[in-house]
């Protein structure tokens, strides 16, 4: 019965999108991967030379490591700062929820250039942080925050925070409130109840939040290139530089393939963990 809902054959309705994605998404990614194994564009040869070239260069290895490190730092910072936001949101009275939703979603929906621009104003030489520090007499000279790794990590954490908060809110709203009440009546304190009950039950949400934050952080281009300036290089900036500025497209393809592999490895590892935690919850 269900299968005949739309008759004649409703699975055919998925065909246009499937064809579209194969033409303009799967095929381009295949071409990209293929060109990362070529020495010169158009030549049908297969070589690992460009991968060798990437890993032989200490600068490139540092860029790869810095990118991975940025992803880990931002993910952990988002978890630390995002979990309480989700917790407060889930336990907030209904009349507060509207305002909280607005506060959480507005930064997510405003343009990423605008958000990054905000951080330039905050971290710059004449920015908020430096005005504050100098006004309080803590430092004489403006301190350097722009064009540093910590500056990028701070800005990225703020920008990615909603991606951590939303899945955790979804996870928290599925927990039976009677569980916490049961724990409290059995003498479990607030901290104990949180670590033994609430936190483990929200692991699926935490893991999907971490997955999103990590993947988007290591792939983002705008914020690291503006806050990092030319001084600090991450994988996407390197791809842009090789592919667009230096017109070395097949090497840019190689770097993209390496970044893609890094994201996929982390995503698969985390989603395996996620599957296990979901089995634990049910």
């Amino acid at each position, binding site marked *: 019965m*269900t299968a005949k*809902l*739309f*008759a004649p054959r*409703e*699975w055919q*309705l*998925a065909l*246009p*999108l*499937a064809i*579209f994605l194969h033409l*303009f*998404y799967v*095929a*381009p990614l295949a071409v*990209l991967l293929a060109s990362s194994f070529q020495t010169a564009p158009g030549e049908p040869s297969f070589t690992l030379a460009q991968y060798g070239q990437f890993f032989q260069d200490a600068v490139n290895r540092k860029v790869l490591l810095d990118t991975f490190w940025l992803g880990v730092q931002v993910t952990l910072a988002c978890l630390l700062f995002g979990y*309480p936001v989700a917790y407060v949101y889930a336990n907030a009275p209904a009349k507060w929820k509207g305002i909280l*939703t*607005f506060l959480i*979603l*507005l*930064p997510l*929906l*405003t*343009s*990423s*250039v*605008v958000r*990054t*621009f*905000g*951080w*330039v*104003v905050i971290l710059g030489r004449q*920015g*908020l942080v430096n005005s504050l520090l100098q006004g309080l007499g803590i430092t004489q000279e403006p301190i350097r925050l722009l064009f540093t790794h910590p500056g990028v990590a701070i*800005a990225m954490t*703020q920008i990615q*925070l909603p991606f951590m908060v*939303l899945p955790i809110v*979804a996870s928290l709203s599925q927990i039976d409130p009677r569980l916490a009440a049961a724990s409290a009546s059995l003498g479990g*304190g*607030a*901290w104990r109840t*949180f670590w033994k009950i609430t936190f483990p039950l929200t692991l699926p949400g935490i893991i999907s939040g971490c997955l999103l934050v990590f993947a988007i952080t*290591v792939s983002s*281009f*705008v914020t690291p*290139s503006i806050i990092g300036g030319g001084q600090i290089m991450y994988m*996407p900036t390197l*791809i*842009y530089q090789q*592919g667009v500025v230096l017109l070395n*497209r097949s090497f840019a*393809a190689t770097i*993209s*393939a390496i970044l*893609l592999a890094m*994201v996929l490895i982390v995503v698969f590892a985390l989603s395996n963990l996620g599957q296990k935690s979901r089995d634990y919850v049910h």
Partner: protein
Amino acid sequence: MSTTTVRASSGQLDKLDRLSFGWVMWGIAIFSLIILSLPTVIVLIASFSSAQTLRFPPTGFSLQWYLALFDYPELWSAAVTSLQAALWTTLICIVLGVCASLAMAGSRARWVAAMDALVMSPLALPGIAVGLGILTYFSVLGVRLSLVTLVLSHVVICIPYLVRTTLASLIQLGTSLREASTVLGASPAYTFFHVTLPLIKQGVITGGFMAFLTSFDNITVSLFLSDARTEVLPIRMWSMIENDLDVRAAAISGILIVATALLMVLMERISGLSKFLVKS
């Protein structure tokens, strides 16, 4: 005697436990919420600065940077290109996404999981790799860059939002109403336009809104797929900020922030935006 002291101190410990938990949770949450809104608020304030350079806090209030925008034709043409690209992207996403969601929601076959993974994967894969891939692909095929190539690439990265919210609506809707319509003799097209579509409208609108914003804001893919004639707004703004910290960028940002906030309130009224984002 001794039992009372023990009880009293354990009662205090309980209180301390509860208090410390509340303080830590609320403290971090309030701090995070302030940090979350800080850049937006700061940009909004800085855009009304009367100073010639970007400094914070601003020394005085003026609308000079907003007025300066009128004399900046490249910016307006970039904004028009962005709007065109975002509207076409949203339209194509809605048509392709709603069709695919109907098929996916109605079936439990194995291909649905594969299709779901395919449609959602652009969310997690690096946009810059996708952009470079599509550029390489088009140059192999000999296709020249234009608004069309820009829109095609935007559809790829915006489609996940549409399918996700539409699928959520369809699953929530269930099949009974559609079955009833079919049983009563309505044709599949009639059922779709008079029963299904009005009932999943909210999901489609929310997904369309997300797709529109994602397309309008995209840099990583647009960077590869647009040329000088099809320059989009975020790229123009990016170069304004990157090169010389043009304060006019603050004025455009101010307009974008207010527009986004108004759109959000409107969307919340129409479709219950937060319902989809928080539950997805």
